[in-house]
């Protein structure tokens, strides 16, 4: 009896467990696609000029804004919708929840405009007219005048004043100089929207953050990340290659070398925050503190090198990625057949000549792969940077026209930290969310492209090498 039971349950297991295993692959893929598509849709969708709605409430009040999302009410039946209404100077808030039951009518009039202003954030409403240099324009000509004026560079723009009307009929006078962008999304054709989308993506990539990181772009963060990563690879490549050559070509292959090799490999698994602690204690407080007391004692107690900065961040990340480069280069060196080395030495080459002319050129692809993998790891690392020199808003770029042009002691902005800071320490997280999504998408894209390049390179060179041998 019992035997029969186990036999039948075994048969069932035998049938079912492959499906459970297959489902775990499917589930991983599902999670990966969900994550990537969430980032793609939210990150890129934000730049699409959203339709502006004019909503009439049961009480007779009229609200204009962009519909963001809906949720069901917590305790009772029904749902409410979140609107971005802008006009913080008039109504005191950028956001408004409206219960769906209260809404009588939703329209999308073409006359609604959205203006980006420097002091108060976005304005959503109607453009009544413009007083510009003695001229009084109204309606469509006023709109054309405004777009023409905004197309000019900031210094050449005419001075003037806009007359704006909010949905509930308040009149606002706004100087033209405070406006940075103007759109009338409801009147745009599909093609105009696409080009506006392209423009806004470009602005995101090329401008600095505005309004406490809730709008504008991430250019300083991109620049900081790139500069830090470049400095890091300049440091890590020669040292990593040197160590790999020593381990593989010069050191005697004995128990000790094997242990060292295992040790190096395992340092890749040590948490990055530990490297950050090392960087803070040794580079910043140790070396940086000494440098300050020797060379910059006139500015003490405000530290120059004794605080986090670009140089220390690059050094820390170089140390963090050193194992990656060493392991990849060593793999490349080990794959070169010994016959090549023996042949070179038999023809009278010294060890240096053998290394420089035969071995290293053949190992270049492996080194390249190692460096790219290191860069990919470094670009996504945030935790150690929080200890050794990243800033939420760096007042000065680390490269400028002032001697010595590259300022290694300055703090810098980093995409990953920018993302963390805006998402968790921002004032208006709701308003910053779209930009956070876009930043996350950008970071993921950079890291994925780097990794794909490494994978592709490895496969390509491996195949080529396969043909040679």
């Amino acid at each position, binding site marked *: 009896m019992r035997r029969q039971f186990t036999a039948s349950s075994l048969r069932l297991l035998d049938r*079912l467990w492959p499906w459970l295993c297959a489902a775990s692959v499917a589930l991983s893929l599902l999670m990966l696609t969900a994550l990537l598509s969430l980032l793609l849709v939210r990150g890129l969708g934000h730049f699409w000029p959203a339709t502006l709605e004019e909503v009439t409430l049961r009480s007779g009040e009229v609200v204009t804004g962009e519909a963001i999302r809906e949720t069901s009410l917590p305790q009772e039946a029904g749902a409410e919708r979140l609107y971005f209404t802008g006009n913080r100077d008039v109504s005191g808030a950028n956001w408004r929840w409206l219960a769906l039951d209260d809404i009588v009518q939703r329209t999308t009039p073409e006359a609604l405009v959205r203006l980006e202003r420097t002091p108060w954030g976005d304005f959503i409403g109607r453009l009544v007219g413009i007083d510009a240099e003695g001229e009084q324009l109204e309606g469509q000509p006023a709109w054309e005048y405004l777009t023409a004026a905004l197309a000019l560079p900031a210094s050449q723009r005419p001075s003037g004043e806009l007359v704006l009307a909010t949905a509930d009929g308040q009149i606002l006078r706004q100087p033209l100089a405070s406006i940075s962008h103007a759109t009338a999304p409801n009147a745009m054709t599909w093609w105009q929207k696409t080009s506006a989308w392209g423009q806004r993506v470009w602005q995101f990539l090329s401008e600095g953050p505005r309004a406490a990181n809730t709008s504008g772009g991430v250019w300083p963060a991109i620049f900081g990340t790139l500069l830090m990563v470049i400095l890091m690879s300049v440091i890590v490549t020669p040292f990593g290659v040197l160590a790999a050559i020593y381990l593989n070509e010069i050191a005697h292959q004995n128990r000790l070398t094997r242990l060292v090799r295992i040790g190096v490999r395992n340092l890749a698994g040590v948490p990055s925050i*530990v490297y950050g602690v090392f960087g803070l204690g040794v580079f910043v407080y140790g070396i940086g503190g000494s440098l300050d007391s020797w060379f910059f004692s006139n500015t003490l107690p405000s530290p120059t090198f004794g605080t986090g900065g670009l140089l220390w961040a690059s050094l820390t990340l170089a140390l963090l990625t050193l194992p990656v480069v060493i392991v990849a280069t060593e793999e490349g060196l080990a794959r070169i057949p010994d016959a090549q080395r023996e042949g070179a030495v038999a023809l009278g080459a010294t060890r240096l000549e053998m290394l420089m002319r035969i071995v290293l050129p053949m190992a270049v692809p492996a080194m390249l792969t190692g460096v790219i993998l290191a860069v990919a790891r470094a670009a996504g690392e945030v935790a150690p940077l929080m200890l050794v020199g990243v800033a939420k808003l760096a007042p000065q770029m680390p490269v400028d026209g002032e001697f010595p042009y590259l300022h290694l002691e300055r703090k810098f902005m980093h995409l990953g930290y920018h993302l963390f800071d805006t998402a968790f320490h921002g004032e208006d997280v709701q308003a910053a969310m779209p930009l956070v999504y876009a930043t996350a998408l950008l970071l993921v894209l950079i890291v994925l492209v780097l990794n794909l390049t490494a994978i592709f390179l490895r496969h390509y060179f491996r195949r080529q090498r396969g043909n040679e041998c």
Partner: protein
Amino acid sequence: MIPPRAPVSHQPLRQLKNRIATGLITAGGIGVLLAILAIGVFLVWETLPLLGLDQTFALVKLSPLAWGTLKAALAAMLFALPIALGAAMYSALFMSARLRSRIKPALEMMEAIPGVVIGFIAGLVLAPWVERHLASTLVVLVWLPLSAGLAGVLWHLLSSRLRQGLPLSWAGLWLVPWLAGMLMLALWLAPLLETMLPGGDLRQWLEQRWGLDYATRNALVVGIAMGFAVIPSIYALAEDALADVPHALMEGAQALGASRWQALWKVALPAAGPSIFSAVMIGAGRAVGETMIVLMASGNTALFSASPFEGMRSMAAAIAIELPEASPGGLTYRYLILAALVLFIFTFLVNTLAEMVRLRMRRRYQKAGRY
């Protein structure tokens, strides 16, 4: 053709250059290796002054952090282990070679996604959603594995023509829409199930019945997010381990009448066991040291609580938050460095052990493959 010989007068110069270069490379190589070693030395050196002090403060300070680290890692492993090992078994034993060559890079990509992005999604998207739909989340966690089994049962009931169209070797791919559909179904049904509870609200019920508080950012969210981050590393190593087991072993077992399940359980798993264990250890090491995900998704409250619905503060997150503000040389500074030392020693030991096991197993199978 005989290559022209370098003039004899150049020979000593060449030899000298060779000597110097070899010396330089040796010095550089040893220097780099020592620099790496310096990490451990520095951490030990900075924590030495703590030895003579009263240890109660250390206990008060570090034990909640240690607890938080273990809780976060445990939650992550609970979520990641079944998925990673299942995926490894499937792709080593069943998956078609073509699909496998595509899936492995895809999961490598998954490993490359920065922790800060996963943490952001977990803390700001997943955590609020789970808070509002706790019942749905729990239902989904139970329902998804069941629905996979259901897919298996349905597949066996299909006609053989349909079965050929949906082969098991590609199931990793075509189960994706099935699971997505089942997910939707669960999300649609879960609120109905929740109304059957007394009070009609799971969180209230948990609080009244079991006295469980609910924090928005909790161990459940951390487990899912960090599990997602460690799945690929466990998967990659475990898959390699299973693929290394000689095929002859599995085939022999099946020829002797074992079912696939028995062949896996009695032959492949014991043979690959140590390597799989080392894969799990490496995954645990990653989970223990991961900073950004815990920092962003755990709420960072230093609590002693085993509840999956409450937050924690891990050692890595505590270092990231507190160390920049601690004055160098102070007591807090030293204790945080002690936490870093613990992390360092733990991950280093775990990884070394795992690596040694892996190398030993590999050597054994290379020998076995030869006969």
